[in-house]
């Protein structure tokens, strides 16, 4: 079942340009200048039920604007979309009941009250059946391990604790679609891992569809099998994470540890990232891996060797750079 389908979805913003300084400010009182920005251009995508899709792109690429159009907060300038069978910006009540949007930088919980009170308010707003509400609160607090936090005022919680409670609030009404805008921003590694575990478990048990934007590649690598990459408002990649690695990660990182110091010239024909003591780090094309191994086999006392793909951040960066150079 298709949960999200867009057809040439585009959004243009008119941005007010004010010259700097006092004179500029006075001038702009009488002569306003505007500039049209294409935040999102002709986005076409299809997301199916139960998928966890990572939505990546540099700052200002149009990720949040797309999410806001899909949640009905923004009207597109062109194109159309259906989300869960509804046109999002018509904002029908049934549509608003069927999904949740969580933004890592914004809070929907009442700041001065404990989260349990905000949950009660959600129950009334979403007309959640009391028995189901009690069951969901119980299950979710157990998954997220936050039983002891429910009665603390939200303002006294840490960022990680608050984000877990934000997620619980957004899941109480059993949404079919979860739109997450940088849900792990500012979280430490432990809190990030907990968030990954919870989201994965929720996706597996309830078949909830998740579209996730993040700047942390760990989020994407851990959770998403499919990724969408957007740059300058345009979709530049839609496919498997491994496919992206294969296309843009045609190199391997090789780390070799020797018992003794290795002369520089041994690996001189390969790109050397580091040679410190007995450790050698190389970046080579996939085709050159056998040649490196042949050289290593001639060396004495090799303690360890590892061959890895370059970090996904590097792969994505290459994709952005390649897209930028094509558009220039």
């Amino acid at each position: 079942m298709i949960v999200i389908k867009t057809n040439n979805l585009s959004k243009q913003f008119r941005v007010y340009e004010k010259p700097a300084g006092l004179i500029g400010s006075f001038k702009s009182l009488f002569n306003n200048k505007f500039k049209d920005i294409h935040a999102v251009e002709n986005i076409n995508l299809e997301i199916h039920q139960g998928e966890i899709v990572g939505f990546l792109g540099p700052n200002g690429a149009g990720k949040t604007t797309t999410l806001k159009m899909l949640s009905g907060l923004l009207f597109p300038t062109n194109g159309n979309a259906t989300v869960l069978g509804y046109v999002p910006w018509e904002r029908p009540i049934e549509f608003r009941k069927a999904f949740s949007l969580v933004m890592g930088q914004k809070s929907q919980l009442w700041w001065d009250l404990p989260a349990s009170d905000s949950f009660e308010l959600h129950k009334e707003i979403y007309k959640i059946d009391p028995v189901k509400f009690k069951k969901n609160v119980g299950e979710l607090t157990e998954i997220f391990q936050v039983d002891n936090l429910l009665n603390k005022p939200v303002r006294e919680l840490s960022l990680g604790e608050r984000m877990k409670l934000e997620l619980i609030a957004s899941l109480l009404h059993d949404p079919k679609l979860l739109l997450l805008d940088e849900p792990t921003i500012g979280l430490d590694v432990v809190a990030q891992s907990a968030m990954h575990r919870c989201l994965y478990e929720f996706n597996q048990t309830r078949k909830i569809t998740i579209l996730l934007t993040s700047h942390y590649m760990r989020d994407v690598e851990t959770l998403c099998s499919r990724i969408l990459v957007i740059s300058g408002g345009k979709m530049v990649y839609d496919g498997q994470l491994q496919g992206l690695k294969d296309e843009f990660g045609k190199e391997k990182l090789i780390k070799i540890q020797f018992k003794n110091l290795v002369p520089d010239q041994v690996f001189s024909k390969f790109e050397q990232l580091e040679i410190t003591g007995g450790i050698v780090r190389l970046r080579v094309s996939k085709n050159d891996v056998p040649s490196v191994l042949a050289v290593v086999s001639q060396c004495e006392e090799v303690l360890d060797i590892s061959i890895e793909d370059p970090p996904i951040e590097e792969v994505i960066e290459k994709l952005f750079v390649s897209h930028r150079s094509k558009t220039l």
Partner: protein
Amino acid sequence: MLRHLRLMFCFAKFSLLGELAFRSNFLLKILVELIWLGILLTFFKTIFGKSSNVAGWNEHEFLFFVGAYYALEGFVETFFLENCVEFSELVRSGNLDFCLLKPIDPQFFITLRRVDWSTAPKILLGFIMISFAMYEIGKPLELWKVPLFLILFLCGCSLAYSFLLLLTSLSVWMIRNQSLMEVWWLFTNLMRYPRQIYDSEWALPIRMVFGFIIPALLAVSIPVEFAVKEINIEFTLFLFVIAIVYFQLSRMFFNYSLKYYRSASS
């Protein structure tokens, strides 16, 4: 309807819990409101110490008017004012997103989600003043007039709410809308005194603009005239109709403004 009442009960309950988390602030706000009432009554007593009649209103009728105004102001401040003032901040910060995503009417949620309990005593005090003024007048309000007076009073509240909503909607374009409070202050000053004080010739433009086009002068005057003076059928009906028209207009304008909401960046 029942659901909206349940939601209002929830908003009221959680707002009270929120206020009680900062008790000193809550008590201080109530104290300030009581001081304001004291100043208003002192001014009122001073005026009627010098004259027995102001623009055709005797002391007890005027006290009834002051009570009705105080209750109306209390009603608007308790339920709507803080929410409307906060609206421009919601637009500026992008937190309006969450209000628009909730599966309830956005106008209902945005303008009623917080109840300012510290101004609620004004409603009670206003009605106490009204009852005291009735007692002093010596002629109890006829029974048939009571529900009609309450309906007209609610029409006055609705008119005031509609003005606020129209001004609030402008925040979507203006983003920073501090003028809202300034304009609201102008309206409260127009509502604060009986419309007859603008009967002189020089005040004709004020009477025309604020008596018919933006009828702030009628919000308190007409319900009170209905209760303690001769009933003016035309104006009474006019208030009833204009309250409905303004409510619909402001609702349409508010929904129209939301289409221009740009949602601040993440």
